[in-house]
């Protein structure tokens, strides 16, 4: 009542006036009279302002009482909502932490990555060379600062076990660009990229704690890094990570004349970062960048192909990469679970509203307005969803911990995921929306119940009101859960297909680890070769070791690399048009140790030495691609055009899966470690593989021991069995699959509860009718068929809609599948059958109850 007509106001004034006079006439003092009237006056005031908090409070109290009267109802509803909202909050936490929350650097939205771009597929993501970094830094105007980095590994020795740690070589500007300062000591200063000044390192908090017992005195001391002394200048705070958590040491890269020479202008190894000046847009910065690239292209005409340019993209995008899509699919899946939960709760409320019709009719008869009733009922549902949401948030906090520990490493920033204010806000919003969604329809329906009917009908509530809406809700539940089930089914089917893919080598009992000999000690590749010869000889003699070899880029290690080459006798091509294929450098016996079959010819032996004719092995895909109609054996290839070293192909090996099981077979070219591509070749980081006759894990200690016998300062890292590596390559897929299957299972359970609820309710409602039917001679079988038929009609309609919806959504799924069509007939038959079976079970329980209805009792109760 926002405004009262003047009439009412005048009457009120008069009334109060009358009351006052009367009180005074009865002997009350002025103050007493006013005090006696205070309540009335206050009530008038609060009504006038339209604020009636006492009503809202009363509604909430009433809602609590109603819930306490029906504990069973309350528990089922709260549990359903807590699971639905909790799952949403948990997945949203991940989306929030990974995709939405800004990176943990100062003004992170102004941080950009600069990439070289040849505007050709595969060539639009080129890192920067040292010379380009300096040009971006000195010639641009749009950036406050420019930095560059590359991730590398460092061998730490001296004092304790030698250790291989992940690190980064960085420009001295990196820390100030990120806005990060050291916890102890300092970060890098300007001239530490100059020769003689660059032997300094900054440690991460984790490395400092682990290896140096968090001793602040380490700052200023010298430690051996890759065999050279380096001074520790600072330790970063625990919260600092760049570019990710695995990096534990930062060292400046050298910007000497050699690094900046034209020769090295094409060594694109660094990721260049830039911080936009405040107020500069990405477009303005891009224009500035175009001018810079045009200028340095003109200065170094021999170094750039046509069309070279540089593009900017946000650092956040660079770090998050393409993990967004599966996360969004999962968020969609939990949203569906919540919708189903809403439908279930709405159904329960409808059923309850039907049994509360008497109460509601009575209250209407006593003068409660419809709006008042709807508000009362909505207060109840919002209260229920608020409690459910709070429990859900608790579940989410627990679920997020579980998610973080089970999530694959490939999800960036996963360690930053947690329940924060934004997640809490999201949950509150979702809870409120949930309450409104599941509460509104039942509330409107309940309040519309025709008065006289409800009162006259006695105890039995009519089925009509609940009937249609309830059935529609169940149909949509079935359809929604089927969509999820089919999606999960497709992912599971893909996963089993993928697990059946043979990698092309024997992955069992294969120990693998990384060994990076430092160039400071192993200055020539011959020194590296003798290290391997001695180490391998020792390891081969060890018990349980059946084969040993090494490769530069191990399958399933994430490493790879291609090189351009020329086939003897074929037309010379311009440098930019030369053929490029994956190149692997392996020690002799690699194919035998890996169990890769040699299809034709032979593999490398220790006689393929530097002073012998150079040899190469190609895989089957390579042979078919480049020598489609002839044998490649005896053909020769070369990797440099100026003074060709010809490598004669002596063998053809079987194809293997290198990057992932789902990857297509790629052409590969193998050359022996003993015959390096160029003069002046130095040692490279290698992966060692050891085939064992027992558990490969027991060989780790033996390998360490044998290495230490040759050089006790050489650590090994990335120690895993091959089966572990293949398992990890599947971990992202497994993660999405398990979560989706979990949500689909939840959806199926909720749908089953929904079907059970509606059928059971219908049986209760129709007890009388069933009694009559049985009395008139209907068989128990007929009763059963009637009840089950009702439930199954809803199920089948829902199934049909769900199948159609899944087929329509198939295109969204296809990029996540492997070896399975998005409309895979097996899945589209098996999953609906599963759902129908569950629905049958859900109908069977109430149907049995209907069968046992005693006609006499059913009729007598009338």
């Amino acid at each position: 009542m926002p405004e009262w007509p003047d009439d009412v106001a005048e009457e009120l004034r008069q009334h109060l006036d009358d009351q006052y006079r009367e009180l005074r006439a009865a002997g009350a003092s002025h103050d007493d009279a006013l005090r006696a009237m205070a309540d009335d006056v206050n009530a008038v005031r609060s009504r006038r302002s339209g604020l009636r908090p006492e009503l809202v409070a009363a509604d909430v109290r009433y809602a609590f009482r109603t819930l306490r009267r029906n504990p069973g109802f309350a528990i089922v509803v709260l549990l359903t909502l807590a699971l639905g909202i909790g799952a949403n909050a948990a997945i949203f936490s991940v989306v929030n932490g990974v995709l939405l929350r800004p990176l943990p650097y100062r003004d992170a939205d102004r941080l950009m990555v600069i990439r070289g771009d040849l505007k050709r597929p595969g060539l639009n993501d080129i890192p920067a060379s040292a010379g380009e970094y300096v040009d971006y830094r000195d010639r641009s105007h749009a950036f406050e600062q420019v930095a560059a980095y590359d991730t590398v590994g460092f061998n730490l020795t001296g004092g304790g076990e030698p250790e291989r740690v992940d690190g980064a070589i960085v420009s001295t500007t990196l820390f100030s660009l990120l806005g990060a300062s050291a916890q102890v000591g300092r970060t890098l200063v300007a001239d530490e990229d100059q020769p003689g000044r660059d032997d300094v390192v900054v440690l991460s908090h984790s490395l400092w704690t682990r290896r140096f017992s968090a001793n602040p005195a380490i700052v200023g001391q010298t430690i051996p890094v890759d065999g050279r002394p380096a001074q520790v200048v600072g330790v970063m705070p625990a919260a600092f990570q760049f570019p990710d958590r695995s990096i534990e040491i930062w060292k400046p890269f050298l910007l000497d004349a050699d690094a900046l020479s034209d020769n090295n202008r094409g060594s694109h190894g660094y990721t260049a970062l830039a911080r936009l000046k405040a107020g500069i847009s990405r477009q303005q910065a891009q224009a500035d960048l175009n001018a810079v690239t045009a200028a340095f292209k003109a200065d170094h005409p021999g170094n750039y192909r046509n069309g070279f340019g540089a593009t900017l993209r946000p650092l956040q995008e660079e770090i998050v990469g393409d993990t967004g899509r599966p996360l969004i699919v999962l968020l969609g899946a939990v949203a569906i679970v919540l919708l189903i939960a809403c439908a279930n709760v709405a159904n329960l409320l409808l059923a309850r509203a039907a049994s509360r019709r008497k109460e509601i009719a009575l209250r209407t008869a006593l003068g409660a307005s419809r709006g008042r009733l709807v508000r009362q009922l909505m207060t109840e549902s919002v209260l229920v969803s608020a409690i459910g949401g709070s429990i859900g948030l608790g579940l989410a906090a627990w679920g997020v911990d579980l998610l973080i520990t089970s999530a694959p490493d490939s999800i960036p920033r996963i360690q930053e995921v947690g329940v924060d204010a934004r997640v809490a806000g999201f949950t509150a919003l979702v809870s409120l929306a949930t309450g409104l969604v599941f509460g509104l329809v039942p509330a409107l329906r309940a309040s519309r119940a025709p008065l006289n009917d409800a009162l006259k009908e006695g105890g039995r509530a009519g089925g009509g009101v609940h009937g249609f809406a309830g059935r529609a809700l169940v149909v949509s539940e079935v359809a929604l859960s089927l969509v999820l089930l089919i999606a999960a089914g497709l992912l599971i089917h893909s996963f089993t297909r993928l697990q059946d893919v043979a990698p092309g080598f024997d992955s069992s009992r294969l120990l693998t680890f990384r060994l990076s000999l430092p160039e400071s000690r192993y200055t020539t590749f011959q020194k590296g070769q003798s290290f391997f010869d001695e180490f391998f000889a020792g390891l081969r003699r060890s018990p349980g070791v059946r084969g040993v070899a090494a490769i530069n880029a191990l399958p399933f290690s994430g490493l790879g690399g291609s090189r351009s080459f020329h086939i003897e006798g074929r037309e010379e091509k311009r440098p930019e048009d030369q053929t490029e294929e994956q190149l692997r450098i392996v020690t002799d016996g690699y194919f035998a140790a890996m169990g890769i079959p040699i299809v034709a010819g032979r593999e490398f032996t220790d006689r393929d030495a530097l002073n012998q004719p150079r040899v190469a092995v190609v895989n089957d895909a390579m042979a078919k691609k480049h020598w489609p109609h002839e044998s490649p054996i005896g053909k020769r290839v070369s990797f440099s055009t100026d003074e060709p070293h010809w490598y004669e192909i002596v063998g053809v090996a079987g194809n293997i899966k290198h990057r992932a099981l789902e990857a297509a077979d790629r052409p590969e070219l193998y050359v022996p470690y003993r015959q390096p591509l160029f003069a002046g070749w130095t040692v490279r980081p290698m992966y060692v593989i050891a085939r064992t006759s027992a558990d490969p894990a027991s060989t780790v200690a033996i390998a360490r021991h044998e290495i230490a016998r040759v050089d006790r300062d050489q650590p090994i890292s990335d120690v895993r069995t091959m089966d572990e590596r293949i398992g990890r390559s599947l971990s992202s897929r497994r993660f999405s699959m398990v979560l989706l299957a979990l949500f689909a299972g939840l959806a199926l359970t909720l749908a089953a509860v929904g079907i059970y609820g509606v059928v059971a309710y219908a049986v209760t409602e129709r007890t009388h009718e069933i009694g009559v039917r049985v009395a008139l001679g209907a068989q128990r079988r007929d009763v059963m068929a009637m009840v089950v038929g009702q439930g199954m009609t809803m199920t089948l309609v829902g199934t049909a809609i769900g199948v159609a919806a899944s087929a329509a959504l198939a295109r969204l799924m296809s990029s996540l599948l492997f070896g399975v069509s998005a409309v895979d007939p097996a899945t589209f038959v098996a999953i609906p059958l599963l759902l129908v079976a569950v629905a049958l079970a859900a109908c069977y329980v109430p149907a049995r109850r209907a069968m046992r209805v005693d006609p006499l009792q059913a009729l007598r109760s009338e």
Partner: protein
Amino acid sequence: MLDRELKKGSAELLILSLLEDQPRHGYDLSKLIETRSGGLLKFRVASLYPLLYRLEKRGWILGRWIEKAGQRRRRYYRLTPVGAHVLASQRDTWREFVLAISRVTGVEHA
């Protein structure tokens, strides 16, 4: 909650009943309800006048300002024919309701 509405529903019934014999003004109505119920029922002004206003809008009662010599003008309400009809049916409903309640409570106590 229930008793609040009970009061509200019954309030309509009470007001209509009190206006059945003669027109009355608001203060008179509130005094009568209080005295005749032996002080058990008491209406706050904040509810009474809006209720009168609502009843008038529904066309169940009609208010008129009447001036009497030596007194302020007062607004007197009387029952309309519609109001009389509603009163009759509400009395029935009320009777049924009371009967129903006593049946139910009677059964429960049996």
